[in-house]
């Protein structure tokens, strides 16, 4: 207990420091700083995406996104690999079939969810949302499927293919930007198009689609792997 | 200095005198010891007879080359000290070969004989020889401690390491002797002299019945004769060293004989009075009063 109270004290001290050193110093800005100002003012003309955040995430600071994708890819690789390897050693027991109710409900919900996900990432440059959000929704759909019907088997190979190809295309688009336009991940090698239309903002929809596919397939892969390796819960 | 036959002749004559005086002196000392014990004691010419007898022993054995050379080393050591020691003050002829080296030479040449003897006795393979030598060396190192201090003190006092100069500085009356002018060095030196003469209480080295005669257990006949010849010379020369250092040297042979006798007598006198020390006692003893006297002697002249 002494140890725990010491830790509590430490955490409290950290909190106090955080408050004094960080929060108290923070003042609500009156106006946008120069970076934000630049983005907000020039985005429409330069990139042409309705969602400025998307423009920032995909184009201006596309490297972040690439990093995120890489992180996910790494996590998925590691997880997929490990769970697979374990399976080799310990065969998993047969799983119970899902209940009727669940199976039926999932049949209704899953396609809708997937479509929603696709919608979200395809419209990432227009509305709140984007590749990650869309991917996450797709992942949720797969999770639902797996939960509702444990015996339902989905070929993970498909996800691997989608994941690999979409990732590669993303990188390729980035390099295309480097070669064809101003720099790496410059989306402007495709025409900006008309603001607020689906095919606008250069390559952003393309990239976001790839990201959506990739994230979706990665999350799905992770879920499926985890699902496959869960021992029988009886 | 050029080689000179006359000088060599004088030196050899001196050697003869010293040898005979040494033999006589040892007889005298034994006589005195006998008289103290109310005996008549040996005849005064006994050392000469013993010497002749030893040289006349017919058979001899040897334990090896070093055994053979040991006495030669020892004898060379004794004769060497004679050679490098001035005998009579102011006399070139009687100063032997002391022009070749100073006090340091004599100090270190003593070891020549000791070392040779130690090696010769060592090769005899006799355990008692080794024990005797180890005791002898141990005691000798202890003796050197106060002696060194005394000599350094004298060297500071007279600003020289040359024995000839030290002796000459003491001329002109008894009041100029180091014994008066530097009493503490004299105390240290004379106490050290007790040890180097090898009489009781510092004669464990040759403890006759514990380790029969110690180092020379195996020596006999001619070897023993050589050793005894050397002993006679060495005793006189040790006394002469102390005489030169502390007691004004000798202006003539009579003074030489008298002074060496008295100095040697000092150790015999102490010897008949005191019992024998064990080796650690004797080593420790030299690090007490003699050493302190030596230190005081240096401090006084620093």
């Amino acid at each position, binding site marked *: 207990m002494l140890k*725990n109270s010491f*830790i*509590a004290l*430490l*955490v*409290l001290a*950290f*909190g106090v420091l*955080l*408050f004094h050193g960080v*929060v108290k110093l*923070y003042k*609500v*800005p009156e106006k*946008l*700083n120069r*970076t*934000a*100002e630049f*983005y*907000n*003012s020039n*985005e*429409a*003309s330069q990139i042409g995406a*309705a*969602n*400025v*955040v998307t*423009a*920032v*995430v995909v184009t201006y*600071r596309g490297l*972040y*996104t690439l*990093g*995120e994708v890489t*992180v*996910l890819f*790494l*996590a*998925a690789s*590691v*997880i997929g690999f*490990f*769970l697979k390897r*374990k399976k080799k050693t310990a065969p998993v027991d047969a799983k119970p079939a899902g209940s009727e109710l669940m199976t039926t409900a999932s049949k209704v919900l899953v396609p809708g969810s997937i479509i929603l996900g696709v919608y979200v990432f395809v419209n990432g440059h*227009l*509305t*709140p949302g*984007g590749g*990650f959000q869309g991917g996450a929704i797709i992942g949720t759909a797969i999770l639902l499927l797996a939960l509702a019907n444990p015996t339902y088997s989905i070929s993970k190979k498909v996800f691997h293919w989608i994941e690999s190809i979409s990732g590669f295309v993303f990188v390729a688009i980035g390099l295309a930007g480097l070669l064809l336009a101003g720099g790496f991940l410059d989306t402007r090698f495709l025409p900006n198009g008309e*603001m*607020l239309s689906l095919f606008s903002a250069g390559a952003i929809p393309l990239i976001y689609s790839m990201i959506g596919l990739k994230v979706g397939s990665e999350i799905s892969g*992770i879920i499926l792997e985890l699902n496959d*390796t869960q021992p029988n819960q009886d | 200095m050029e080689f000179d036959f006359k000088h060599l002749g004088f030196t050899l004559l001196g050697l003869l005198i010293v040898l005979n005086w040494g033999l006589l002196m040892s007889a005298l000392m034994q006589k005195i010891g006998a008289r103290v014990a109310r005996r008549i004691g040996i005849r005064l010419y006994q050392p000469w007879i013993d010497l002749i007898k030893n040289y006349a022993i017919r058979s001899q054995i040897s334990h090896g080359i070093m055994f053979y050379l040991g006495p030669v080393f020892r004898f060379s050591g004794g004769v060497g000290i004679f050679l490098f020691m001035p005998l009579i003050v102011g006399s070139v002829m009687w100063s032997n070969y002391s022009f070749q080296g100073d006090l340091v030479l004599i100090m270190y040449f003593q070891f020549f004989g000791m070392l040779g003897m130690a090696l010769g006795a060592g090769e005899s393979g006799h355990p008692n020889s080794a024990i005797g030598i180890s005791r002898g060396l141990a005691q000798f190192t202890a003796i050197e401690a106060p002696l060194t201090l005394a000599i350094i003190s004298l060297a500071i006092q007279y600003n020289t390491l040359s024995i000839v100069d030290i002796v000459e500085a003491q001329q002109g009356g008894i009041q100029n002797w180091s014994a008066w002018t530097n009493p503490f060095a004299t105390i240290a030196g004379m106490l050290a002299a007790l040890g180097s003469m090898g009489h009781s209480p510092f004669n464990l080295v040759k403890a006759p019945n514990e380790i029969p005669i110690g180092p020379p257990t195996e020596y006999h006949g001619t070897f023993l004769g050589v050793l005894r010849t050397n002993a006679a010379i060495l005793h006189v020369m040790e006394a002469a060293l102390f005489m030169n250092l502390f007691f004004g040297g000798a202006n003539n042979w009579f003074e030489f004989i008298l002074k060496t006798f008295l100095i040697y007598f000092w150790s015999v006198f102490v010897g008949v009075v005191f019992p024998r020390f064990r080796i650690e006692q004797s080593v420790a003893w030299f690090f007490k009063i003699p050493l302190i006297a030596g230190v005081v002697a240096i401090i006084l002249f620093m």
Partner: protein
Amino acid sequence: MLLSIENIALASGILLILIGLLGALTNKNIIRMIVAFSIFDTGVNILIVTFGYMPGRTAPIIDGAKVTAQNIAQVAIDPVPQALVLTAIVIGFGVTALMLVFALKMHEKRKSLDINDYTDLKW
């Protein structure tokens, strides 16, 4: 205005951070620690978002009506914190997933989720 939306958000952010930290430091169960880390992450993310909030402004999305390409600099908030938070969330997701795998693998070998059982490497 103590109970303004940004103050509430700030307070809850810090609170979540502290709860997360305390949980991660005191819970012995590895899964609970991972959960606590998620809470901690969430707190930090809330903090970031809150910092990016400007009272009275809206999201930087041009909808052609309220927010247009011309007035967006005046009515919309800073898009960068949004982007940063988005990145942070996704990375947090990856890290959490990896932690869970570690937990799984650790449990697999020793059948224990107590962090105190994994002190073989020390000193």
